[in-house]
């Protein structure tokens, strides 16, 4: 794997870390399985790319993408909270609708971003090669977002958000409007995913309506890899673990694609991702089952040894 390919993987991993933050917010913090992200990622890309080609400042365009993504998240939340549609189904409805919205925004299936200013343009005079510049800029942006998000989740309002996902009844008993916090969290989550889409489009020079397929699985993969490899308790460490998980996932994919002996091509990416996430979900369970089997065997082997008491944790 060449240095350029390696840095390319890191760069994509850093962009998708924002997706991982969004997925962490919805799936883990709010306990709201949200598939809207498959639609809000290309929506963010579409909004940013279209605005940039119309001459809008790339930073302003990226901010508009965040707002568009947040609006998409709110639609899902309204469908679920106000109209009682199951969260998964509500998010699939929004995701389906967003496909058309993105097409309409772009006026076609894709928008090329060639010879225009992007968020990277201001740093291009620094004399760094693009393949170094992009990962560095994205690392700064992603770390900044992680710090801000962690700071928010440790604020009084952020605590209310976390309580909503952890124990909604207790949250309400403590004066938290769980509806309000869910709207907020879903907006924030999809805003972050749309930002990732906007940055991805600017780094790669195009926005395409099909670029969102599998976003949710990639985001989940990053969160699960992060949680498994770096189990952390504080919110900031958890977010950094998501970030690391996202980069590691991309590196693993990069190595697999570059290993000629495996004979894998880019089109095999989705299957590999699904297998990877599947394994990450299955392995902890198999490990637990093996551990309890071992414990049972150890007990039957020594019948006189201390028997488990009611207080024993499983």
């Amino acid at each position: 794997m060449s240095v350029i390919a390696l840095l390319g993987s890191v760069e994509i991993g850093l962009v998708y870390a924002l997706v991982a933050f969004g997925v962490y917010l919805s799936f883990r913090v709010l306990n709201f399985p949200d598939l809207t992200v498959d639609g809000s990622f290309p929506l963010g890309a579409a909004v940013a790319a279209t605005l940039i080609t119309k001459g809008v400042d790339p930073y302003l365009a990226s901010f508009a993408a965040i707002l568009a993504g947040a609006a998409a998240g709110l639609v899902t939340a309204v469908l679920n909270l106000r109209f009682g549609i199951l969260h998964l189904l509500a998010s699939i409805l929004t995701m389906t609708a967003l496909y058309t919205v993105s097409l309409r925004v772009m006026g076609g299936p894709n928008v090329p971003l060639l010879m225009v200013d992007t968020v990277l343009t201001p740093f291009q005079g620094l004399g760094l090669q693009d393949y170094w510049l992009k990962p560095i800029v994205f690392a700064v942006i992603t770390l900044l977002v992680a710090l801000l998000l962690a700071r928010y989740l440790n604020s009084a309002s952020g605590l209310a958000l976390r309580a909503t996902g952890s124990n909604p009844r207790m949250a309400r008993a403590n004066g938290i409007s769980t509806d309000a916090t869910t709207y907020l969290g879903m907006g924030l989550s999809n805003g972050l995913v749309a930002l990732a889409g906007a940055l991805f489009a600017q780094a790669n020079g195009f926005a395409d309506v099909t670029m969102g397929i599998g976003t949710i699985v990639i985001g989940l993969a990053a969160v699960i890899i992060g949680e498994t490899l770096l189990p952390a308790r504080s919110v900031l460490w958890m977010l950094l673990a998501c970030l690391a998980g996202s980069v590691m996932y991309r590196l693993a994919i990069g190595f697999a694609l570059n290993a000629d002996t495996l004979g894998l091509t880019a089109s095999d990416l989705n299957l590999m991702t699904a297998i990877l996430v599947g394994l990450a979900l299955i392995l902890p369970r198999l490990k637990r089952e093996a551990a309890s089997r071992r414990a049972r065997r150890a007990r039957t082997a020594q019948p006189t040894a201390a028997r488990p008491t009611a207080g024993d944790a499983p």
Partner: protein
Amino acid sequence: MIRCSDLHLTFNRGAPTERLALRGVTLDIPAGEFVTVIGSNGAGKSTLLNALAGDYQPESGAITIDEQDVTAWPSHRRAGLVARVFQDPLAGTCGDMTVEENLALAAGRGTRRGFSLALDSGRRDRFRETLRDLGLGLENRLGAQMGLLSGGQRQSVSLLMAALQPSRILLLDEHTAALDPKTAAMVMALTDRIVQDQKLTTLMVTHSMRHALDHGDRTIMLHEGRIVLDIAGDQRKGLTVQDLLDQFAKVRNEALDDDKLLLG
């Protein structure tokens, strides 16, 4: 002053499983009074508490707290006036958050939650002092996950959390029922101390007639959604559990007689 006037509440209205949970409950609780509530399963004890907290909306009747009609308020809006401890020790706290984060959540009850940090050294010191009073050694475990604590510890912390912010009424829903007898006694003693120290208006549902008579100033008995016994003061002082059981048996027979009249 808490006032419930003629509360009616039906579950599954119109369905074969329709159940009249409250059938005209009228109850005045003056400020500072500690009321214990007893009654058999399905008598409406928990329903009354949940209606006061705002989890259930009564079909008719009104609930006023300090002359303010709160009947239509959802539970999160009422939380500034109503503090509660649930029966299940897991229900009153967030298991995947730390002890200090749970306390910070409760300290924000009835306030606007802004973007300033939920925990600072001043708050931590205050929480540490409050936890020290418990005598459970929790003052050294502020950063521990709530889920690692035992049921009794979690319920004690829930009680502290309910009392961190002022409230008009404290609702205790069989909050010792899930604990072993020794822990239950510890939590009951803590309840008495907190209620007396802060002069809290309290409504405590209990399954134990003993607890109902030993604690508080007044005891009410619910049966089939109605208050059938309401005793306080001297009348209550001499009462034994046996007296209460006799009363209960009498009430039940009367209720049966009523039904016979209706049906016959």
